[in-house]
């Protein structure tokens, strides 16, 4: 690593450097501060709801003691699982296509499609998936919910993976080819692993993006006050419970809603950590 002290720095350049550093550090700290403020507020408002029954019991009507959001926890795991199963491979494929077939018309079209998909309000995605999946199946299902969420997740994941793929130095592919590897092997065996941290970060961000989505689930997963493990049946989800409870007149339910929101953020944090979303620091080149 080059040592700044060795270079000949005039005072002005040094000042500019320090100023820039401040310009970078201060806003970033503000962002982290905001995040802390929001999460702390959620925690403060919802901590009172935490108890064993909150995590282990399904919902109970207002006025009944105990009760929790266990049905929502299971449901969220199911729909997020299905959404990830569907969107990760598709996003990888789309990103690979976009990075390796850049000039083509289909690639340009695909790029626009992925970008524009984001502009569809999630409630509309839910309404369309209702028509495409729920009505033909004649049933609400975690499956339909997962598909709806995957459509929302895909643009985030694809875009992130793509930008990282584009930055893998061409020398990697050249080296692989010079060793006789076929194109596909170079892509999957060399390029993808080189972009690993970016891919994991994209997936982590994508999961974060959909974990709190409510509207699309209203018309697809539907919700369920009872515990359910069947992906073909209506399922609850934490955001649905939050939505219900927040709308109600009851302070107790509001507190549970905040508690559920905190749980959701905690869950996303854990998933991100476990899949290694933060990634390593620097990498050599």
């Amino acid at each position, binding site marked *: 690593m080059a040592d700044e002290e060795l270079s000949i720095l005039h005072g002005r350049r040094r000042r500019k450097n320090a100023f820039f550093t401040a310009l970078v550090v201060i806003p970033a700290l503000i962002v982290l501060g905001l995040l802390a403020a929001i999460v702390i507020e959620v925690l403060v408002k919802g901590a009172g709801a935490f108890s064993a029954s909150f995590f282990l019991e399904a919902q109970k*009507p207002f006025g009944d003691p105990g009760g929790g959001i266990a049905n929502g926890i299971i449901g969220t795991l199911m729909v997020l699982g299905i959404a990830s199963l569907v969107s990760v491979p598709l996003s990888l494929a789309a990103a690979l296509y976009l990075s390796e077939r850049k000039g083509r018309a289909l690639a340009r079209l695909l790029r626009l499609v992925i970008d524009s998909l984001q502009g569809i309000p999630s409630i509309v995605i839910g309404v369309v998936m209702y028509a495409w999946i729920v009505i033909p199946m004649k049933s609400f299902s975690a499956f339909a919910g997962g598909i709806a969420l995957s459509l929302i997740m895909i643009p985030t994941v694809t875009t992130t993976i793509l930008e990282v793929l584009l930055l893998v130095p061409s020398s990697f592919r050249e080296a692989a080819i010079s060793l006789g590897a076929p194109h596909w092997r170079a892509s999957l065996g060399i390029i993808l692993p080189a972009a690993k941290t970016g891919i994991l970060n994209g997936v982590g961000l994508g999961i974060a993006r959909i974990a709190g989505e409510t509207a699309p689930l209203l018309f697809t997963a539907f919700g369920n006050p009872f515990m359910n493990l069947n992906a073909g049946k209506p399922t609850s989800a934490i955001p649905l419970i939050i939505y219900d409870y927040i709308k109600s007149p009851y302070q107790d339910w509001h507190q549970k809603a905040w508690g559920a929101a905190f749980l959701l953020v905690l869950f996303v944090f854990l998933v991100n950590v476990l899949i*290694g979303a933060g990634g390593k620091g620097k990498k050599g080149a």
Partner: protein
Amino acid sequence: MKINRVGAAVLMALLFSAAGSLAVAQSSSITLLGSGASFPGPIYSKMFDVYAKETGVKVNYQSIGSSGGIKNIMDKVVDFGGTDSFIKDADMMKYSAPIVHIPTVIGAVVITYNLPGSPELKLTGELIADIYLGKVSKWNDQAIQSLNPSVKLPNLAIMPVYRSDGSGTTFNFTAYLSEVSADWKGKVGNANSVSWPVGQGAAQNAGVAGVVTRAPGSIGYVELAYANQNKLAVAMVRNSSGKWIDPSLSSISAAAAGSFPKDTRILLVNTSAPDGYPICAMTWLVVYKDQKYGNRSLDQAKALVDLLWWVSHDGQKYAPDLDYAALPPPAVKAVEDVVRSITYGGQPVRK
């Protein structure tokens, strides 16, 4: 690509939940699905929880909004739809088969406001309409003061707050205003969502109440349950018999105690009942009159009909604790007739 071992475990867990559960066999107990109005959500949640304990029949109701409920029952993906406004004759045509309405509970729209000292105010329907039309814009306006001579009203601007999200509450509120004010009826009209001449919007009861409690001089309309649970100041409203009525469970039930139409489709606002609160809101469940459609079994139909009977009888006792008004006897009688008219392949399900 090496994946962190714990990460792999989590991935496996997610995948397992997703893929493995697709193979789980269908449960054999009966489940009924319903969706629609959010207003009765809490009381349905209580009723259906008790019902599951007593009969083993699981009822899954989701408050996705009246419009969603109507759509779902039209698409036949639920057993019953919940709605705060009954289906009009013209819209009945859209259903592939005749439907019936079963009222379940009654609520009310109350007027809440933010004034120093939280005095109890008396307001008439026409005055409320004028406020929301922007014709009366100061609290110490003569129109308000003359109705409340003992209250010292401040020289404060009135800020009307309305529901930004479409809702049955708005429907009933605007229905009331349309009944008592020809001006309102002409300029704005009556629906789940309207074009408000003045004021600002807020989402949900919580949003409206939030604005009102924070902004001095503001006035808004919310559900009774919400006002009670959060101890909001509410106004007394003059009903069509000239009495000043405080919104309460008894004055709400009283509003429905007059004559009740056989098909139960009645707009309760501006009731002629002498002791009734004038801005009441009933909520219904909508089902198909003949239950033999799709591949519905007789057992499913029986379960539904039994549920409807239970809700209008035994279920009613759970309403007051949650700030909902129970159906008065004439309404229950009408419900019984409707429920007895539900058939399966032409044969009545409940004798």
